[in-house]
């Protein structure tokens, strides 16, 4: 064996290495964008690298992750959900209205005894699950395209929420005076002081994410939704109960919005009928940045989480370095497009 390599061999090896680097960067494009962003912000302002900031970013992301888990599942089936944000708003108002403390002067239900914490949360979750189920029925059985079905549901849900919100005795006004046990859920944490601690909502979000990951990767239902999104006809002729699975995916998503809405109210200590406005687009953007295909069949839970985190870091980090909020919008827009343009290379036909 000779130690001297011939030039062709060296060239071939270099080519192979270049290709490996290219493949790697393509495969992990999203994650590379993510890291680059953090590095850029840290260079501008080294104080960004702190546990406190990490904690804040995670808290900020928690409810968004839960919403993204719902929207993400729907996107995988090739659908979409524009009603997510309004459902979050409905859940926030419903749970907040049922969890005001007794002495609060403008209590929506003045004489009502205190309910156990879980009950209003469950009511909010069920309310949204019913809306989700309605979405599913409209899409699976009436064959209305998801974009239109959920657009209608978005508009209608805001109406439902506003009627509820505007009810006597005090009419439309922000719901405040939330009970301590609810606000603790939103701002409490495990740990011994503010810095070295994990907020409850982050734990809830991670538990939900783990549950959805199991559901998507380890169950028949999960494999089925990928098949439905990847090739609906194939799923149908293979005996996949397409309609039932669609109902389930929209219902689960609704339930998740219900939970997320309650946590939004808990985190912010109040609710109005405008809560959640636009969250559906944030969630869709986060999912696609995280590698979920809007045409269905492709997407992972870790990808969705990273997508949410990217947006949280942009919002938080760019505000941290005092960037003009309008510029932040431009950067967010560019990232949505760039991330997808990069990510889609993985799937384009090789010509």
């Amino acid at each position, binding site marked *: 064996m000779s130690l001297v390599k011939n030039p062709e061999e060296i060239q071939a090896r270099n080519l192979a290495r270049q290709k490996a680097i290219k493949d790697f960067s393509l495969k992990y494009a999203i994650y590379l964008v993510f890291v680059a962003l953090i590095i850029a912000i840290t260079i501008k302002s080294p104080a960004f690298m702190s546990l406190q900031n990490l904690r804040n970013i995670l808290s900020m992301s928690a409810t968004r992750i839960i919403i993204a888990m719902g929207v993400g599942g729907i996107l995988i089936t090739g659908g979409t959900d524009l009603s997510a944000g309004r459902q979050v708003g409905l859940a926030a108002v419903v749970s907040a209205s049922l969890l005001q403390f007794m002495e609060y002067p403008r209590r929506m239900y003045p004489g009502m005894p205190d309910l156990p914490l879980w009950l209003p949360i469950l009511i909010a979750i069920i309310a949204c699950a019913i809306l989700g189920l309605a979405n599913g029925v409209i899409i699976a059985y009436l064959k209305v395209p998801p974009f239109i079905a959920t657009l209608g549901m978005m508009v209608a849900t805001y109406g439902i929420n506003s009627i509820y919100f505007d009810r006597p005795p005090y009419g439309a006004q922000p719901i405040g005076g939330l009970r301590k046990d609810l606000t603790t859920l939103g701002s409490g944490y495990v740990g011994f002081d503010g810095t070295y601690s994990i907020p409850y909502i982050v734990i809830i979000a991670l538990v939900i994410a783990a549950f959805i990951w*199991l559901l998507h990767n*380890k*169950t*028949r239902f*999960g*494999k*089925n939704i*990928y*098949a439905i999104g*990847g*090739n609906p*006809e*194939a*799923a*149908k*002729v*293979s*005996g*996949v*109960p397409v309609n039932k699975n669609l109902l389930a995916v929209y219902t689960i998503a609704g339930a998740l919005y219900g939970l997320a809405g309650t946590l939004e109210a808990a985190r912010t200590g109040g609710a109005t009928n405008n809560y959640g406005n636009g969250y559906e687009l944030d969630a869709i953007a986060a999912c696609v940045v995280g590698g979920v295909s809007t045409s269905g*069949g*492709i997407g992972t839970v870790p990808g969705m989480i990273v997508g949410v985190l990217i947006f949280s870091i942009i919002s938080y980090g760019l505000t941290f370095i005092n960037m003009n909020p309008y510029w932040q919008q431009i950067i967010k827009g560019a990232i949505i497009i760039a991330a997808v343009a990069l990510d889609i290379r993985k*799937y384009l036909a090789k*010509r």
Partner: protein
Amino acid sequence: MGDSGYVLEMNHISKSFPGVQALDDVGLRIKPGTVHALMGENGAGKSTLMKCLFGIYIPDSGEILLDGKPVKFTSARQALDAGISMIHQELLPVPFRPVMENLWLGRLPTRRLGPFSFVDSKRMLEDSKALFSSLGMDIDPKVWVRNLSVSKVQSLEIAKAVSHKARVIIMDEPTSSLTENEVEQLFGIIRDLRDKGVAIIYISHKMEEILEISDEVSIMRDGRSVGTYQATELTVNTIISKMVGRDLTHRFPPRSNKPGDVVLRVRDLSSAESKSFRNVSFELHRGEILGIGGLVGAKRTELVESIFGLRPLESGKIELKGESVLIASPRSAIARGMALLTEERRATGIVPMLSVLDNTILANLHRYVGKAGFLNEKKAGTDVDKSIEQLRVKTPSPRTRIKDLSGGNQQKVLFARWLLTEPSILILDEPTRGIDVGAKYEIYTIIADLAARGKSILMISSEMPELLGMSDRIMVMCEGRLTGILDGKTADQETIMRLATQFM
């Protein structure tokens, strides 16, 4: 099994769609342990009948007996559970998922863990491997289906159908993308299944295949049954005449074209893509029909698409009428008088929702732009009317959406589209794929006419009779290399086959 001796009987099945009587009192009786071919032109109702059986369509009237007992399926699931599985004509893979998930879709094995039930990936992998090895297929169960070749996807579909342990397996055009070897392998599998008592309903347009594999043949025409025959009493010609309902004495029209000077000269052409064609040289004459034969994967499509500027070239020269040219895009190819009718008519040819008129003028819009930038619809209309008449396109009106036409008529519209660009060289990639026997003849007539008018034709075809019946010369490729150019008059099937498999 019922007393009748049939595993499956379909009696007096009728099914109509708005405006169309797709099936009219059709019957089909299948004996266990036989291969039963179902034949008919496109639109004769074969696929509709099978979809009624498989629970995708619900027949308006008639009965289906399985083992003598009446059944009514309302979903694919029920049909599968009852022991009927189907290989669908259009392959139905879920692209970005592993092979094994595709294989077991709809019945993924699960394992219980307390109150939860999880998919058992380990078992799925083992079952997949066992199934593939029992069928002699070499497919990795873990790769994305997207990364398989078309013929592997088709093998996967076959494996899937077999794995249902069905008593009746419907195979709708199972060999459309298989290589010769794989077809032989499939026939081995079919004979095995038959010997085990499974009934196979075999739908195909390939007559030679039908006669080789089937025991009985049922023929349909215009949504009605023509009859059921023993395969041994049929010949290609009798099948065709029963399918078409009249005698077709000639499968190919007479040709009067006279090849002249060299129009296109290709020298040492190599693709810039990996594993594509290398060092291909040939000449195409004025008024000549040059056939390109070979198996699927011989890179014939890649070759013509590269000449047409759709794919990158690494080296080689293209001369048009003695002048060396560089064709970097289809636009420049069209400007130089070339036209390409692609293989995938639906995917890359027609725009289904647009009218026949709009589809026809699509490649020529610039010719109809008037002074103010608006389209001159009158001129376009006149030209399209002329094309429709010339090519005998059967359409209710130029305004009809092209998706409502039959495959043959769609193909004629595509011919019309490209003829309006007044090309001197027409490249045809599988011009009669999926077209009825009757309509095929008309397409052949168009091709022969064009050649007689001095157009040069480069025609890829995987159908041996078509290649032999239509070409002045035949070039054969294998694994990206040119293995020979034969004279159309003296060439025979064996020589072509030998050249097509030279490097395998």
